[in-house]
């Protein structure tokens, strides 16, 4: 009986996923977008990795030079301050934050810097950042792919600009950031524009939702913890203490996570963000992002849904009676390590 139910669930999930698949194949993507709004902190000092390791969920202590990793800063309640990407540039570190979170992250780190040898500088305005979705962007610069590590930073030198190509882990996407001095902004965009298609914000937003990428302000905030947000793959449960660790470990150990970030299909085109979802008249969740799918009469969205209603294939409704279906409970960085 249990096996039959599982098979039924799998079939429903497959059917729903096929119905909603209108996004481009992620393996053939060849696009870029302006990601200048991401924050960049420049950090120096021998205690940098040690402090970030004691303040965030993932193990960052052993990042090799010219490699990057992602981790989550959480507060003492185990709630999300930001997902950050830490890049070891050998003589200094770069820290990529979500848009608008650069100063928040800097202030948070600075608050806990007591006797550590660390100097921070917010250099968000001094860098140009492009986000590239491409299987292997090194080929755009005639660089042979010698590195096998998925976190290796590559230096790009052209006659017109110098920059760094940095793996930017977003689920199973081939995603990179190209970071350079802001004085190269136009020449980099021109170069990328000759090789890749440009995506504006609405185009990327539709792609982001379809590929279940949470962003700060919508899905990620101090109202949610990383387990609810499907970020368990960025938590190292063996690394030791960090701010919020006890709460997160307890939620995981005692299975106390009350809601899940889900991908949903909504049978309407209305503006849906912050709209509540109901099951038999009871509040079951809230929509955090939504956008109409091109050439369809439905929207895809992301929503925090109570665990009792977040099984794939569950039907919910909006206050006005539009049907909402749970398609998936994604894990951006994969399963628990």
């Amino acid at each position: 009986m249990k096996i039959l139910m599982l098979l039924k669930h799998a079939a429903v999930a497959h059917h729903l996923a096929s119905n909603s698949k209108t996004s481009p194949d992620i393996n053939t993507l060849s696009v870029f977008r302006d990601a200048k709004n991401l924050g960049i902190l420049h950090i120096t000092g021998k205690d940098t990795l040690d402090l970030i390791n004691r303040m965030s969920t993932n193990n960052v202590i052993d990042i090799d030079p010219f490699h990057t990793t992602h981790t989550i800063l959480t507060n003492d309640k185990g709630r999300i301050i930001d997902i950050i990407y830490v890049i070891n540039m050998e003589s200094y570190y770069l820290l990529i934050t979500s848009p608008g979170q650069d100063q928040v992250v800097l202030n948070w780190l600075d608050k806990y810097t007591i006797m550590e040898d660390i100097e921070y500088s917010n250099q968000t305005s001094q860098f140009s950042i492009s986000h590239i979705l491409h299987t292997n962007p090194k080929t755009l610069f005639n660089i042979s792919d010698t590195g096998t590590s998925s976190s290796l930073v590559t230096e790009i030198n052209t006659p017109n600009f110098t920059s760094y190509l940095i793996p930017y882990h977003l689920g199973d996407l081939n995603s990179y950031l190209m970071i350079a001095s802001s004085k190269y902004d136009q020449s980099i965009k021109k170069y990328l524009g000759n090789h890749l298609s440009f995506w504006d914000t609405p185009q990327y937003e539709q792609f982001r939702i379809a590929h279940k990428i949470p962003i700060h302000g919508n899905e990620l905030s101090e109202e949610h913890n990383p387990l609810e947000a499907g970020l368990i793959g960025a938590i190292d449960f063996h690394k030791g203490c960090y701010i919020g660790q006890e709460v997160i470990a307890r939620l995981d150990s005692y299975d106390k996570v009350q809601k899940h970030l889900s991908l949903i299909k909504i049978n309407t085109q209305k503006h849906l963000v912050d709209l509540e979802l109901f099951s038999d008249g009871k509040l079951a969740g809230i929509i955090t992002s939504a956008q109409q799918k091109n050439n369809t009469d439905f929207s895809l969205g992301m929503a925090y849904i109570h665990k009792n209603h977040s099984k794939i294939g569950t039907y919910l409704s909006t206050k006005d009676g539009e049907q909402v279906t749970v398609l998936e409970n994604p894990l951006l960085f994969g399963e628990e390590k």
Partner: protein
Amino acid sequence: MPVTKDGEDITVKITEKAAEKIKYFAEKDGTDSEVGLRVAVKGGGCSGLTYDLQITTESMESDKVVMQHGVKVMVDKKSYIYLVGTTLDFSDGLNGKGFTFENPNAAKACGCGTSFGV
């Protein structure tokens, strides 16, 4: 500026038991001169701040230094405000073995015993 209570300097104290253990570890470390313990607070850890203990003979100019039970206790200047009034003890009971901190400034502490918040 030293913090005082009833005209007496309040600083970090160590119990006799903790002092004996510090001397034991210092000896194991090969320290044959004056035994010193540097006490400091680092950012991070479960509750936001983490105790840091180092057996060392060298103090920094800015350290607050006091001799107790034959151990030179050095308190990092920046950490002083978080540690003032703290007593360092050593526990070898069934409920946990190691150095323990009784810190009147700590509003919360975590299960691991090395992290606290103010």
